[in-house]
């Protein structure tokens, strides 16, 4: 097992010119720092237009696991630093790196870059010296200069020689915190966390809004939502505020006073109104939802139109064109799936009408709603909303003083 010294971080520099760049880098460095807070010795460093994490003895695997999630990073590479400039130590280090690759590669290529001109061997010569050493000491491996499985890069600089041969892809995107704020309507299901994740991908900070209906929903359902928020926050700033909106009263009012087939439409219109009110308070400029077209009867374009009618806020629907299977794939990839499928009631599963309307209209919805004191209900729910901070940091969750 090779002990790596640094992790080199690459980000989409091309897209970033001018003064945005400094802000972008600072946010990315902050997000990485928060992501690896429990590896205290690891330090984020920016120098000469690149960013790297000095491991200082922390395990590469554990640190990389965290970093590779963070939006804004296109790829990363573990690097080995060789402090003395002897040919032998560079050869040995190169070999150990190659041997560490699992599964063992069949072809490779060496690429040496020498900026330290005092080093006696030139780049081209070094390519042969290093490559030859590896060929001699590893079975079943060949050089392929065109399409090598592994590209071993050796950079000989004044501070030392830096070796990398693994390139771990990141998720790309922009660092969370560089693109304004949206409020995410977060249920406990599969879709909304994925929608949140995709919203974050473009650099937006998000806060969650969750509708609770005790006693129909439980402590575990609430915890599940916070867990989900914690999981997706790992891709951004490491934490996320979730607004817990008490929704029982509104649901029962609708249930008792409005026609059953419009129940879901009206309920969702209330959710939008409340979300907008909270967004205003939190200075967010958009709402984000997990809706996709035609998934369930309530997600027709007519339905979307009718629900959208109560707000002027932009509603981001990152999943709108996706199939369920695509959404599930992402949920698996980002680690929310297992939590999403835990079977606790959420506010949308309690009152399920037998035949919900599939083509609701704005006119009808407004008319049915007239019996309700919309303003009071919304205001009351917003006032009683509780804000809870979800976090990927364990010590910020509820902890027991037992250990």
């Amino acid at each position, binding site marked *: 097992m090779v002990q790596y010294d640094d992790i080199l971080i690459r980000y989409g520099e091309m897209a970033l010119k001018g003064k945005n760049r400094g802000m972008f880098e600072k946010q990315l460095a902050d997000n990485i720092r928060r992501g690896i807070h429990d590896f205290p010795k690891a330090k984020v460093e920016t120098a000469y237009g690149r960013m790297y994490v000095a491991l200082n003895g922390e395990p590469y695997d554990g640190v990389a696991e965290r970093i590779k999630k963070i939006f804004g990073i296109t790829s990363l590479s573990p690097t080995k630093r060789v402090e003395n400039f002897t040919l032998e130590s560079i050869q040995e280090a190169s070999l150990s790196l190659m041997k560490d690759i699992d599964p063992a590669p069949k072809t490779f290529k060496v690429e040496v870059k020498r900026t330290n001109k005092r080093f006696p061997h030139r780049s081209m010569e070094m390519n042969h010296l290093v490559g030859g050493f590896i060929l001699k000491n590893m079975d079943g491996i060949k050089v392929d200069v065109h399409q090598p499985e592994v590209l071993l890069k050796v950079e000989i600089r004044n501070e030392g020689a830096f070796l990398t041969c693994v390139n771990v892809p990141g998720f790309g995107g922009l660092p969370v915190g560089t693109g304004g704020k949206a409020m995410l309507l977060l249920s406990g299901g599969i879709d909304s966390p994925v929608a949140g994740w995709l919203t974050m991908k473009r650099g937006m900070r998000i806060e969650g809004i969750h509708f609770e209906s*005790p*006693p*129909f*929903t*439980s402590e*575990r359902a609430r915890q599940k939502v916070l867990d989900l928020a914690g999981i997706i926050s790992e891709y951004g700033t490491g934490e996320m505020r979730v607004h817990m909106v008490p929704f*029982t009263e509104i649901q*029962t009012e609708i*249930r*008792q006073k409005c026609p059953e087939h419009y129940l879901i439409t009206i309920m969702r219109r209330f959710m939008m109104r409340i979300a907008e009110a909270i967004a205003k308070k939190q200075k967010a400029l958009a709402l984000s939802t997990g809706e996709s077209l035609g998934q369930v009867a309530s997600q027709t374009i007519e339905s979307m139109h009718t629900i959208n009618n109560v707000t002027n806020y932009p509603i981001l629907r990152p999943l709108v064109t996706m199939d369920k299977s695509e959404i599930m794939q992402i949920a698996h990839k980002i680690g929310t799936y297992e939590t999403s499928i*835990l*079977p*606790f*009631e959420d506010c949308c599963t*309690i*009152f399920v009408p037998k035949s919900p309307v599939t083509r609701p209209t704005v006119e009808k919805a407004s008319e049915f709603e007239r019996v309700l004191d919309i303003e009071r209900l919304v205001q009351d729910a917003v006032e009683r909303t509780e804000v809870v901070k979800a976090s990927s940091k364990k010590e910020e969750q509820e902890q027991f003083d037992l250990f």
Partner: protein
Amino acid sequence: MVYLDNGATTAPYPEVVETMKEVLQTYYGNPSSLHHLGVQSEKVLKQSRELTAKFLEVSPGEIVFTSGATESNNTAIKGIAFQYQNRGKHIITSAVEHPAVLDVCKQLQDIFGVRLTVLPVDSKGMVRLDDLKQAITDETILVSIMFVNNEVGSIQPIQEIGNYLKSFPKIFFHVDAVQAFGKIPVKPETLGIDLLSLSAHKFHGPKGTGILYVRKGTQLTPLLVGGGQEAKFRPGTENLAGIVGMVKAMRLTQQKLKDQPDALKRMRNRLVEGLQGLEGCYINSPEEGAPHILNLSVPGVKSEVLLHSLEDKGIYVSTKSACSSKLDRPSRVLMEMGLGEERARSALRISLSYENTIDEMDYFITTMKQVVPQLKQMLN
């Protein structure tokens, strides 16, 4: 707080906690060690075994200490299945067993080619002796039937089955008596039982300890293999603190059963009477069931919703067995009893212990009468 979830688990008696603390501090030597500390631990272990045997009216050599009923059940069922596979490969169990029996049998069926008969139950949740008689074949090596059902409290005809099986010396009889001990008399020998499982945390003992009674002469292919402890039926360094805690809990519980044999029954009767006036509330437990379990349904109100409404008032109950309660499925046991999906989806289990009081029953009744109509209104 009114804790009515004693079927899921119980709070350890304060005396149990104290005694465990003492064992942890004083008798930490390994019972297998040759020196004094080991000898002391071994003596404590021996006394624990003797007391357990006394409480169950069996011999000390027939007591195996385990890590709980799940392990006891697995050890018994797989132990017989592997040990006697040359005699036959047929096992009989019931449809209302705990997963720690039913799923063990199914695993044997799926992976090890055992043939399985799952006996149905009647509307009271009881197996019929006739069904059992018909199921027995030359190949049958084991019958595993629980004593008291954990969801509805039905008491199975263990004595009848035990008697009947006496004429089949080659068939072993295993009984999961987890919900029976301390509530009704449990005497494996007079009941004709060969193997019997108990779990300490169901009678105010610690979690992670249990008992397997193995009738003398019964061989088992050991499930766990290792250092040879527990007469090789269950090796591994003995959890002495847990064992002593369990034995203490057994003693205290048996004492309560003796001193107040009707206490549980009185509380349960109070519940039944008190709930009679509540519209739309049905009792699922058979009248002659175990005294500490009462299962009821309020059709139209999902179990989980009623549970959380009661929780708001400080009352803790469960929907079905604890370990399956996180799955959003109708109760399997109620379905098997033929009570229908609506009742199986709206079931609550109230489970009592000697620590509960009649006042708590009254509080529960009052609360139900308050909460249920509210919920019904909200849901209509």
